[in-house]
């Protein structure tokens, strides 16, 4: 039970903050000539290192802007670290902002294929799971309606249903334990709990103390991009609350 599945080694992410966003050529040239192309550098993550072992449920704690979401994005592979290395084994399923990859003009059914393929699933796999996804999302006849006409809850339900159709080795949760209405909340929580029981490795960002206490085995605390604590979940929670 000590197989390392995720290694985050001395990861830093540097953002360039311009005071005004220069995104056209004219402005760029003018500013370049006037020597006004000043960037403020901002370290969203500063030398963060930790490892996660198989079956760990890691809570990532920190106040707003501490770098939690940046860390999740780096682990999910969306954002590339400026320095440091990340390596992982198995497939990662990020449940971040569900349904963000949907095409609004596409119907729900078409989006299942689009979004599923985006997560790297094969055609056969999506086809074989199609009914299961539709049933779990429980959208009724709305499955053939363009997603632009969906409510935000319906979007999230469809996104959740597609993303959780595989059994992930590493699950990334950004406070999305509850989406949709009361009935769907129950259903989605149950699905996640089932994954937890099966020993899925979880990275979990939350501000909810009870959830962290109940669910997580380990914890890290971030503060202004630096990791200030790494250890048990309970201790991490104390550190975070005291701060």
């Amino acid at each position, binding site marked *: 039970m000590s197989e390392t599945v995720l290694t985050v080694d001395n990861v830093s992410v540097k953002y360039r903050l311009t005071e005004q966003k220069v995104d056209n050529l004219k402005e760029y040239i003018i500013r370049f000539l006037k020597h006004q192309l000043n960037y403020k550098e901002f370290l969203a993550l500063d030398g963060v290192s930790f490892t996660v072992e198989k079956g760990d449920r890691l809570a990532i704690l920190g106040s707003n802007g501490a770098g939690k979401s940046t860390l999740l994005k780096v682990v999910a592979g969306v954002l590339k670290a400026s320095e440091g290395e990340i390596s992982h084994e198995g497939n990662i399923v990020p449940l971040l902002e569900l349904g963000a990859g949907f095409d609004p003009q596409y119907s729900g059914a078409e989006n299942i294929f689009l979004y599923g393929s985006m997560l790297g699933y094969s*055609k056969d796999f999506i086809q074989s799971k199609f009914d299961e996804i539709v049933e779990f999302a429980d959208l009724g006849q709305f499955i053939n309606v363009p997603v632009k006409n969906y409510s935000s809850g319906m979007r999230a339900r469809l996104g959740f249903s597609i993303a959780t159709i595989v059994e992930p080795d590493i699950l990334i949760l950004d406070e999305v334990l509850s989406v949709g209405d009361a009935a769907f909340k129950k259903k989605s929580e149950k699905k996640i709990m089932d994954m937890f029981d099966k020993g899925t490795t979880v990275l979990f960002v939350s501000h909810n103390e009870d959830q962290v206490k109940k669910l997580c085995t380990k914890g890290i605390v971030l503060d202004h991009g630096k990791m200030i604590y790494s250890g048990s979940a309970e201790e991490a929670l104390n550190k975070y609350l005291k701060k």
Partner: protein
Amino acid sequence: MKLFFEDFKKYRYFLLQLVKKEIKLKYRSSYLGVIWTLLEPLLTMLVLTAVFTKLFSRNAVDDYPVYILTGRLMFSFFSQSTTQALKSVRNHSGMIKKVYVPKYMYPAASVLSNYIMFLISLIVLAIVIIVRGIRPTFYIFQAIIPLVTVLIFSLGVGMLLSTVAVFFRDLEYLWGVATMIVMYASAIFYNVESVSTKANEWMFRFNPVYAVITNFRAAIFGRPMDGFLAWYSAGVALASLALGAIVFSKNQDKFILHL
């Protein structure tokens, strides 16, 4: 490199989905749907033929409607695919910010979806060729060379444009002007011999779009290809693909910070 192929294999279905999406959505709320791919070039051919044979004196050696159609089909593939590729990374910013996929798939899907529609629209060319009584010769098989060349060239240019467009939004407007220049320099509706002089000869000789159009026409009208133009355009196409791929892969990690 090995990683590249593994990634491609894993996400090839996504590429297919993107291509499908672009074709599907283009004609979603039109009655005639994909028939427009055939109808639109046919209608512009009729307009151009009417304008240039009735209003201006024509002096093309080849059959004029076929001459126009070959040039226009190929040029509009180039201009539409590159223009769409240019916007592709920006248009998919929502996806890029949330889920990891190989990013070159966005411009590639724009070019490929346009290529498929271009190939479909060649049906209309075949019909016009038959109607105009042109007998295809063995040279028709040479058409494959300009057809492949223009695809590679558009992929390269599209990747390059999509990268730069992330950092500079005004490229979209500049490229609109640039494609217009390319159009007038590609001899789509006039005959080169009638306008070329010593001073402007280079404009045709070194324009890769003109090169592929000329060789495509040669294949249709049953003439051997121009050797220099074939080698030159193939060279430019491969160079542009290499350049586009390098610039794209060097900058793709920065996209997310600018979208």
